[in-house]
């Protein structure tokens, strides 16, 4: 069944249709929540609560609009609120998978080690950025949302996403250059 039809049915109160929608989007929703909270149990709670709130708010969902960014905006808000009420900063401990044939072409062992170090370095510096910078980068590159989707999810204009992304990457580059100098 098409997502639009599922959303229509859910809008009319169909919980079975909504369950199918949830199943389709629960992975990206959980990852979005995890990128905010940095804590798996909290991300799970936020995801579940956000799905319930989204169902209650389905009457505000514009028919025909893309469901994913609308949902992710609710997920992000819920995750942010939970993290803030817990009174702590997100302790993002992302890990990058090791080199594998499925992901990249065969490389020399030395090149693989350098690439892995570079990824770890990038992740570490990403964790040091402000929440706004970190989220715009994470949503855009890790969740692979389009600029439009990222804008809807973060509740800002598309131009804001562009400029924020540019500034965040510049900061990231600066931080990595400092480490190189050190």
């Amino acid at each position, binding site marked *: 069944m098409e997502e639009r039809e599922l959303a229509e049915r859910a809008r009319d109160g169909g919980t079975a249709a909504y*369950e199918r929608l949830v199943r389709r989007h*629960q992975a990206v929703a959980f*990852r979005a929540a995890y990128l905010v909270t940095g804590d798996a149990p909290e991300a799970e709670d936020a995801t*579940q609560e956000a799905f*319930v709130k989204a169902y209650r708010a389905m009457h505000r969902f514009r028919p025909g609009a893309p469901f994913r960014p609308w949902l992710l905006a609710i997920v992000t808000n819920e995750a942010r609120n939970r993290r803030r009420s817990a009174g702590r900063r997100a302790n993002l401990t992302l890990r990058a998978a090791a080199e594998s044939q499925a992901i990249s072409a065969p490389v020399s062992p030395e090149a693989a080690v350098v690439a892995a170090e570079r990824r770890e370095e*990038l992740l570490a510096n990403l964790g040091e950025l402000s929440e706004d910078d970190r989220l715009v980068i994470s949503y855009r590159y890790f969740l692979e949302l389009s600029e439009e989707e990222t804008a809807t999810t973060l509740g800002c204009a598309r131009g804001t996403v562009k400029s924020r992304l540019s500034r965040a990457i510049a900061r990231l*580059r600066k931080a*990595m250059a400092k480490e190189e100098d050190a």
Partner: protein
Amino acid sequence: MPDDRRVSEREIEQGLRDLGARVEYPPTPEVARSVRLRLNEEQSRQARRNWRWPPFLAPRLTAVAVALVLISVVALSPTVRATLSDFFVSSDQTGSEAGGSAARPEIGASQDRATQEEGAPSQAAGASAAMEDEGAFGCPSPSVRANPARAAAGETFWLSGHDFSSDCGGVGTSPARGIEIYFLQAGETWPLATLDADRNLTFDTRLRVPALAEAGRATVRATTRSGEHVERRFLVLR
């Protein structure tokens, strides 16, 4: 070290894209089922709530209906209306002296009054009781009102009376005659006036607080020839 030897922004972007494909997240929990169960539970709870309170029995509507019934009872029953009216007027006029309009006969009342009470003990047993009995048969209950309800000894006040009829229960209704007004305080009784009700069964007269009255509580009493009496509390000021 020159800038171009460092990592460029384009490389950072490329690195981030590469990283995005490799980031390891915790396993995605299965929330679809639990979300649906929660929503179903909410819906059934809502349905149970609706079943308990169908629209015509909703708490607010029930409260409004009860209030309307009470207002109707008050509006249609002269006895209840008069009692409530007396109560609220008394509260307004006497402040801390607020209280019911009926009181037991005072010791030391005038000789005539004593005779009347002896001759008709059941009638003298309290104004409100007598009035309620009358009200039950549809007779209007007499009432008095002092304005102001507090004054110093020697000062004047207005006393108005309503529903003073002489032959309630008979064929017609005629104004009561020879209504005696007394001022009672601490066992003392001062006759203030004797007057007749007008054709509207009302009277309105100016009276003077007895010069010997002391500061404190007092009672103004209107007694009809049939021995019924109505009272109103009064506060004598210093």
